[in-house]
């Protein structure tokens, strides 16, 4: 177990993240241009969608029903209790609590992708259709949190109308790439996938490492916001993922997933969105302070999950299954 944790810390992916962090801290000009970073992000989402779609094309539909329901349950309950905790214990304003709840209710595709890489390295099998659940979990939590934040108040004059938010979420690049990849994978199947495997499968982990380098930079350049974020947020950003992971693994178990599947489901729950949610929240809740929600999600929870969370949650899942 400990060796698994060490291996995770010394994987090229985690180390690339650390290199990015260091680069940001020493104010280096080591940096992937934003255009290339956007292309890598699209690549990773498409690739993971494709793989999930191919798996879905071969899955027994009945095996998918319960996990889908479990995902929707997560999507509604996670933002709700996150909001309650942030309001009561954290004493955050309504909009700031809702903004944070949107992030912790939603999901980080890259954490999920890193978890798959970790799981594969650990030799644990998992249901191939899990990426479909990422796509499913991403949106509802954000909508629930927005509703919590707006309840009973008139939106400020600069708030995007509901139509704008729905469009932003459903036609947003994360959803489109993930769902697009899923549908392409579903339709093209194994034989189609074989044609593009040397591009979308073989170099995948290397691309992930390069991408994490840049995420490390982004996290690193927000580290100095930690001070203003306060102790509560640091606690919330590390304890909440563990609690969510426990809930997720339990739900996954009840939904009939394998140990690997339940682990990934736990990672889904534990991860906090840092692409889709920040964009949606900025537009729909402009009064909320990005110094809280971006910092917590990107500079606290993401590194925590990547280094400590991934092996810890696997220990939790294996404890439940043995």
């Amino acid at each position, binding site marked *: 177990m400990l060796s698994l944790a060490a291996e995770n810390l010394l994987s090229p992916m985690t180390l690339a993240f650390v290199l990015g962090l260091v680069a940001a801290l020493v104010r280096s000009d080591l940096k992937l241009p934003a255009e290339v970073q*956007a292309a890598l992000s699209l690549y990773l989402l498409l690739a993971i969608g494709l793989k999930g779609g191919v798996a879905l094309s071969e899955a027994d539909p009945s095996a998918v029903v319960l996990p889908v329901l479990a995902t929707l349950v997560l999507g509604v309950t996670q933002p709700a209790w996150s909001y309650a905790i942030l309001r009561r214990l954290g004493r955050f304003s309504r909009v700031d609590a809702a903004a944070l709840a949107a992030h912790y209710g939603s999901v980080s595709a890259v954490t999920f992708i890193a978890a798959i890489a970790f799981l594969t390295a650990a030799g644990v099998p998992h249901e191939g259709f899990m990426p479909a659940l990422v796509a499913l979990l991403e949106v509802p939590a954000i909508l629930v949190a927005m509703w919590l934040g707006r309840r009973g108040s008139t939106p*400020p004059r*600069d708030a995007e109308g509901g139509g704008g938010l729905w469009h932003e979420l459903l036609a947003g690049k994360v959803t489109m790439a993930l769902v697009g990849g899923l549908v392409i994978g579903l339709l093209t199947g194994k034989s189609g996938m074989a044609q593009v495997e040397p591009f979308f499968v073989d170099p995948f982990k290397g691309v992930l490492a390069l991408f994490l380098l840049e995420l490390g*930079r982004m996290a690193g350049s927000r580290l100095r916001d930690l001070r203003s974020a306060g102790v509560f947020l640091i606690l919330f950003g590390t304890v909440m993922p563990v609690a969510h992971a426990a809930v997720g693994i339990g739900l996954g178990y009840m939904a009939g997933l394998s140990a690997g599947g339940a682990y990934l489901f736990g990672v889904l729950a534990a991860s906090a969105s840092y*692409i889709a949610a920040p964009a949606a929240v900025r*537009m729909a809740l402009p009064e909320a302070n990005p110094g809280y929600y971006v910092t917590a999600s990107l500079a606290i929870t993401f590194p925590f999950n990547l280094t400590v969370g991934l092996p810890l949650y696997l220990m939790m899942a294996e404890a439940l299954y043995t």
Partner: protein
Amino acid sequence: MSPTPMKLLTVVAEAALERRLTADLAALGARGWTIVEAHGHGRHGDADGDMLGGGNIRMEVVAPPAVVDAVVTHLRDVYFEHWGMIVFTHDVDVVRSEKFKG
């Protein structure tokens, strides 16, 4: 050559606002606009684009004074409180002023 006086409005704002701002401009009577990507620094700290957005746009509109006034009022009322944004205007001479009129 017969240059005609017009107003040039320059807006620097968060890039995430681009779609909403161009919709506003069209609704308020501007016939065109020019946008470049930018980064910068202001009351909201550094605005450096990365994957999370966070960059700025710099938007220019050439229009008759009345249109520019209406746009400035609208921007001030709707965006100034919660968004990173600055606005400035000055006179310019244009060729073929009919291109810029409502």
